[in-house]
């Protein structure tokens, strides 16, 4: 019996190990659900964001998961169509029984998810929606876009700070944007800025999203002879408006502001020299690489993957923030030790997070505590190759002042040459 005891205990220990390992492995995965624009007008951006989130999931799982659970992303294509969003999030929560939800890309698809998110009291990380929470005032909403505590104002701050720094000060402005959620909110912010700056609005119109030719609009703007032209548009419109401005020979002191699309490689390479002189926003440009050291490692990993997947090969705009959004969630779950939505939200409000886009702290409305979107002017672009965008020299950062690399060149008709 005595001789058998060591064998028995060794055997029992081995059995325990055999059962213990699968027991840990059998921990259900931590399922994070979302809708994402994988087809439709914003699919290029949505797919780039998805790749970032998948890279994050792979990184986390390689480190053993979160709280011992592997991460699994559950996602559906929202077709860039807001009407699909409520059913996607209902399915994620009721049928797929996901543990957490995050948003898809853009104001248009974040806003329709909000009523369901609020009904279920979920903590909700959102990806690049402009001023969405101003309509809902939801305490568990968090926005990863660095637009600051007053997003609509912060979004246009750089453009207006630069414009009002011109000498002589501009007097008149034309405002134009698409009939859609984001442009409407961006124009709302621009109108507030116009009021503060005491500018006179000489043109304020929106256009339908399926507009083909923008030259009549640009000519109508030109007829009002504005000092500034502020545009809030989506990618195909941005391309059409820039082309029309070049064809018509738009004469104004500053042109641009809130045009989605020029941040991505596709439009950068397609429009090439037509972008010269445009003042727009960017989240990152190589000119300020020294101030974004945290981004380097992510970009190396992302760019290698993006080339294979055929999406935005630069990844300067949305992809790092999609990764950072998931990092915030990861850190909050680890720190609170669970998935209690109230605890998660509370922790996210109180904490400063270390992410691949730097330090992130949220204000009381869930927006970044301080704005960091860059206002830039494009110049010296020749040809349509991508390589010129990977090194400094094609962009001047105008605002915020702590990131500025130069001053704006005006008027637009001269700076575009």
């Amino acid at each position, binding site marked *: 019996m005595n001789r058998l005891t060591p064998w028995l205990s060794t055997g029992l220990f081995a059995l325990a190990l055999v059962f213990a390992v699968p027991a840990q492995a059998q921990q259900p995965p931590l399922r994070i659900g979302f809708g994402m624009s994988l087809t439709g007008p914003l699919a290029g951006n949505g797919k780039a964001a998805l790749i970032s989130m998948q890279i994050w999931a792979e990184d986390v799982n390689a480190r053993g998961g979160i709280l011992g659970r592997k991460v699994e992303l559950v996602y559906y294509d929202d077709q860039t169509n807001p009407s699909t969003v409520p059913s996607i999030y209902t399915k994620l929560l009721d049928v797929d029984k996901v543990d957490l939800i995050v948003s898809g890309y853009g104001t248009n698809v974040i806003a329709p998810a909000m009523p369901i998110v609020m009904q279920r009291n979920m903590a909700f990380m959102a990806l690049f929606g402009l001023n969405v929470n101003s309509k809902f005032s939801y305490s568990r909403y968090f926005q990863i876009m660095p637009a600051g505590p007053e997003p609509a104002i912060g979004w246009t701050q750089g453009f207006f700070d630069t414009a009002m720094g011109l000498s002589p000060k501009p007097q008149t402005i034309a405002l134009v944007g698409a*009939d859609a959620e984001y442009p409407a909110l961006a124009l709302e912010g621009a109108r507030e800025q116009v009021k503060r700056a005491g500018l006179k609005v000489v043109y304020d119109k929106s256009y339908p999203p399926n507009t083909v030719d923008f030259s009549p609009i640009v000519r109508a703007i030109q007829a009002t002879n504005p000092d500034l032209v502020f545009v809030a548009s989506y*990618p195909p419109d941005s391309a059409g408006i820039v082309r029309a401005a070049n064809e018509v020979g738009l004469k104004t002191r500053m042109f641009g502001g809130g045009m989605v699309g020029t941040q991505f490689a596709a439009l950068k390479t397609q429009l090439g020299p037509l972008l010269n002189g445009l003042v727009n926003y960017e989240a990152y440009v190589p000119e300020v690489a020294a101030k974004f050291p945290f981004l380097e490692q992510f970009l190396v990993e992302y760019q290698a993957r993006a080339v294979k997947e055929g999406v935005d090969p630069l990844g300067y705009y949305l992809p790092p923030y999609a990764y950072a959004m998931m990092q915030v969630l990861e850190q909050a779950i680890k720190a609170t030790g669970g998935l209690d939505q109230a605890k998660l939200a509370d922790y996210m409000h109180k904490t400063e997070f270390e992410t691949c886009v730097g330090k992130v702290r949220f204000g009381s409305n869930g927006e970044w505590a301080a704005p960091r979107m860059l206002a830039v002017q494009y110049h010296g672009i020749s040809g349509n190759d991508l390589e010129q965008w990977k090194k400094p020299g094609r962009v001047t950062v105008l605002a915020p002042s702590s990131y500025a690399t130069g001053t704006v060149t005006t008027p637009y008709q001269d700076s575009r040459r």
Partner: protein
Amino acid sequence: MEPETALLFNAIIAGLLLGGFYAAVSVGVSISFGMLDVVNIAHPAFVILGSYIAYIVNDRMGFDPIVVSIVLSPLFFLLGSLLYRVYYICFEKRGQESLRGLAFFFGILFITEVALVLIFGVDYRFVQTAYSETTLRLGAIDFPMRLVVPFLVSVTMVVGIQLFLTHTFFGRAVLAVAQDTLALRLMGVNTFRVKEFAFALSIATAGVAGAFLIVIQPVQPAIGREYIGLVFAVCVLGGMGSIWGTLLGALVLGLAESFTSTFFGPSWAPAVSFGLLLATLAFKPSGLLGR
């Protein structure tokens, strides 16, 4: 020239150029829907397919997309012929063309879109041509070649189709099918062949219109859906089955859009365009040049 006069003339030119493009996109629907009674809701998907083929050949070999589309139009013709055969065998022959046929073309629309997403990805595609960034100026009036070239080719194509339909034996057979298929059958004509040819022709025009589209604006696989309403509106406004009517309807909608955008605000453009359509149908239900 006074600035107001220049604005007016530029609005006219922009409207006509835009209308030329609309005519190219709509003429195929005018044939399939207006003449053959085939509700080809997938027509814009073939326009986008044309855009992508023009893009890929331009990207790889540097050929002009419009030239490419004309050279490759026989391929689109064959594709249209094949599609009509499937439609005929599965639906028209069995008298199930109304609802099931519509569902069939919806299916074709989605399959084409998904295939384009899988092959080309979801990014916007655009082509650069020798004339893309050239604008001719006649005094204060602009002629952007990005729109002028598609306009000229489009008008040539539409006039060519009209001449073909009215001056050739086969063309007249197509018109006869549009008027009375049964009478033609009683005369011993193989109406299937005639309709197959006409439908194939409509798909060939979609391929050419696709090249115009990618010259004018960036394209992504789902962008075709935005044109479904427009092409049917042009077709109905001009008069079902009337090629001249399609050209006129397209020019009217282009001018309406341009004038509204220039003088009243672009957000009113769809309301004015479709208001015009409603008014035309109220006073002349058969459309501008319909019988």
